């Protein structure tokens, strides 16, 4: 293997490794939005999942406990969102923003409060082992793709599995059909006996729980080092909300969306290295301002939004009642 091919492989490997949390956030938000609720609290929900998942994972030295705790803690955020918007009929946008503020506040409160007692990942060998790469038999020996796609930790595979399961659930099960009906036209679903409140609660909690797993992933990927100034989530929650639109509310397309966004996300870090490795083909990357790479993913979202709105009716998977609260006796 020569050096430049290594750079390319590493670049592709990191696209997956660094950006998988986006997939968790996106799939969680898709489930939420398919229930007709726009939860803008992804960022805060992921932060809550991250810190409690990490602390529980360290306390028990177990990846599984960490995962379950992250799911439960973030799920509680989803439950709070559901309580406010479904039961108490609060405005969804404001509630979502509140969840973000609350989640980030809780994150810093707990993290700073622990101070010296903050657990380090060096003390928890089992947790670290749980997060190390597992090579998929046969496939991992493929050139380039083997390292880039099939030599990752289990949470990468879990994320893809959850996305695939969510897609199957939405399109091939009756509960999935009812969930979509709740998001499209709750009055219609209600009139045939679908329990709107139950469907909303379950999927809002589950959706937030999945976001929390993404947060936990980020904690581990940052080696659990807590900084007082920057949150681990670092805006990924907001990108996930945009990715939902990019993916047209389809969990399978969310995988593609994660890779596309991840490409541009990772490009800003690897632009220099890539330009160095392939001076002939990619040397021009050095000439571009680094801010441009940061802006690219959002520029693409705008392009996708334009494309989907031109397609009109057939295309968008956006639930018709997204963001609207349902009250049966509304006249």
């Amino acid at each position, binding site marked *: 293997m020569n050096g430049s091919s290594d750079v390319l492989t590493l670049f592709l490997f990191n696209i997956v490794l660094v950006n998988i949390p986006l997939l968790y956030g996106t799939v969680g938000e898709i489930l939420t939005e398919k229930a007709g609720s726009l939860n803008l609290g992804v960022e805060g929900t992921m932060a809550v999942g991250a810190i409690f998942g990490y602390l529980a994972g360290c306390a028990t030295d177990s990846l599984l406990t960490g995962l379950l705790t992250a799911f439960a803690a973030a799920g509680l955020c989803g439950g709070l969102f559901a309580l406010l918007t479904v039961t108490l009929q609060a405005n969804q946008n404001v509630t979502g923003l509140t969840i973000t503020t609350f989640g980030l506040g809780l994150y810093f409160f707990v993290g700073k409060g622990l101070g010296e007692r903050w657990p380090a990942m060096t003390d928890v060998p089992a947790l670290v082992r749980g997060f190390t790469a597992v090579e998929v038999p046969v496939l991992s020996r493929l050139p380039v793709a083997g390292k880039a796609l099939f030599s990752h930790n289990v949470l990468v595979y879990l994320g893809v599995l959850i996305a695939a399961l969510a897609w199957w659930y939405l399109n091939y099960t*009756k509960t999935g059909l009812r969930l979509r009906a709740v998001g499209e036209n709750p009055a219609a*679903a209600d009139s045939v006996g679908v329990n709107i409140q139950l469907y909303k609660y379950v999927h809002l909690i589950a959706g937030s729980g999945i976001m929390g797993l993404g947060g936990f992933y980020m904690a581990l990927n940052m080696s659990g080092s807590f900084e007082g100034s920057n949150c681990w989530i670092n805006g990924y929650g907001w990108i996930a909300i945009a990715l939902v639109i990019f993916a047209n509310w389809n969990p399978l397309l969310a995988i593609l969306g994660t890779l596309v966004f991840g490409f541009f996300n990772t490009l800003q870090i690897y632009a220099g290295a890539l330009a160095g490795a392939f001076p002939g083909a990619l040397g021009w990357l050095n000439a571009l301002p680094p801010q441009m790479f940061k802006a690219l993913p959002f520029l693409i979202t705008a392009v996708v939004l334009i494309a989907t709105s031109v397609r009109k009716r057939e295309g968008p998977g956006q639930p018709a009642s997204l963001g609207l609260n349902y009250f049966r006796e509304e006249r």
Partner: protein
Amino acid sequence: MEERYAIEMRGICKNFGRVAANKNVSLNVKPGEILALLGENGSGKTTLMNMLSGIYKPDSGTILVNGQETVIHSPEDAKRLGIGMVHQHFKLVDVFSAADNIWLGDEHSGPLLKKNRCDVIRQMAQKFGFDIDPQKKVYNMAVSEKQTLEIIKVLYYGAKIIILDEPTAVLTVQEIDKLFAVLRRMKAEGHAIIIITHKLNEVLEISDRVAIMRRGESIGTVDTAQATEQLLTERMVGRKVTLNIDCPTVEKTRPLLEIRDLTIRNDEGATAIDHVSFYIRGGEILGVAGIAGCGQKELCEAIAGLRPIETGMMIHKGDNIVGLSPKAILEKGISMSFIPEDRLGMGLAPSLSITDNMLLKNYGETKGPFVDRKSGRAAAEQVIQELEIVTPSTETPVRRLSGGNVQKVLLGREIKSGPNVLITAYPVRGLDIHSSYAIYDILNRQKKDGVGILFVGEDLDVMMGLCDKILVLCHGKVMGVVHAHKTTKEELGLMMTGALDLSSKYADKPAGIARDSRIEEVEP
């Protein structure tokens, strides 16, 4: 054995805030019987039925289903009890196929969506005698198809008691016949059917008994065999009314609005109005008849300047109005009121008060940045008084008013601006007789004042009574212009379906082109 009722409601009361929607209402229906529920707008019919379908809960009173006292907490409960309701506004998921809309409420066939679900629905529909494409998406369906789907849905869930809320309001004559055939068959199979409708001829045609409601109270039940339109109206309204629609003769002026060779596309880009020509004189009402979605909406929007036209001319008093802004057209005295199917969607802001809705049209007339609420309130009070609008105050949000009153507000505001051409589409959509006649009176008064009125309507009986001439559209093409008092319902029906084309009946005078046209005077 004594006869058992499928549904018996005793002493039902329901209040919304301080307003009593139902006061001590009792009602019953037997299996194998069609009960018509008759009442003016806001008399509490839909509220009463929503308590059977589990949308509302009664404040007091008891409901017996098949002789058993029951409490219906939710639509789920209603479904379990075999009660199915076809709502006035269909409860369908637009982006789902017909089959999936039915499948949504299915509770028997396991957790997975089976591949053969379309076949199952097709077979089931055929068993009940319906013809439906289970794979067709709801948003591609015509109104009558959606209604058929709603009925199949209700039957699929095994309902024995079927409630239909104004099912005929959106159907053509032929479709209504088909629906009634279905209802008669269901009746023969032992279903109990409750049908809400405003149309008395339909009540007399289809029902076995008629239950009448007035202002939230039950007035009593009449056997249809002993009922007449006159009797039903009197009991419903509470006093004697005459059922003849006035059509005063007014001296006509030269054409006010002339449409020549007009072609318009709809939102999907298909031709909605196809080389249409017609004219309206001052002092006449020109009816526009046609099956729903035949270009009526596009035509109204084009005249009001809300939709670009492909080709053709629109001449108002000798001035070309093509390409003018809606505001400029309004200033010329062309006023448009369109009542869409949901009856609130166009022209009024539902959450704003009557005053604010009055101001919507002329807020620009006052100088300076501030709103002149005083004049708006005065206008609102005047309209309320003149059109006998029932409302707690001028500051009540429009959506809180009952349908008839909302429509009066809209029409009242349009008339207030003193138009010389009034375009009105479905002004009595969903209104009861009393309110409808009030609207006809308003239009006739305008006509006497020399206003030219374009009346896009649904009910052929009404149009034949009210209009001077009727223009018939079929798929955007003019099938002819007939004299309202010389034509027959059958002739109109044939023209609406395109079976009869009278557009070139007279070789010397093509339909829709006035002899004393002003178009020749217009600069090309």
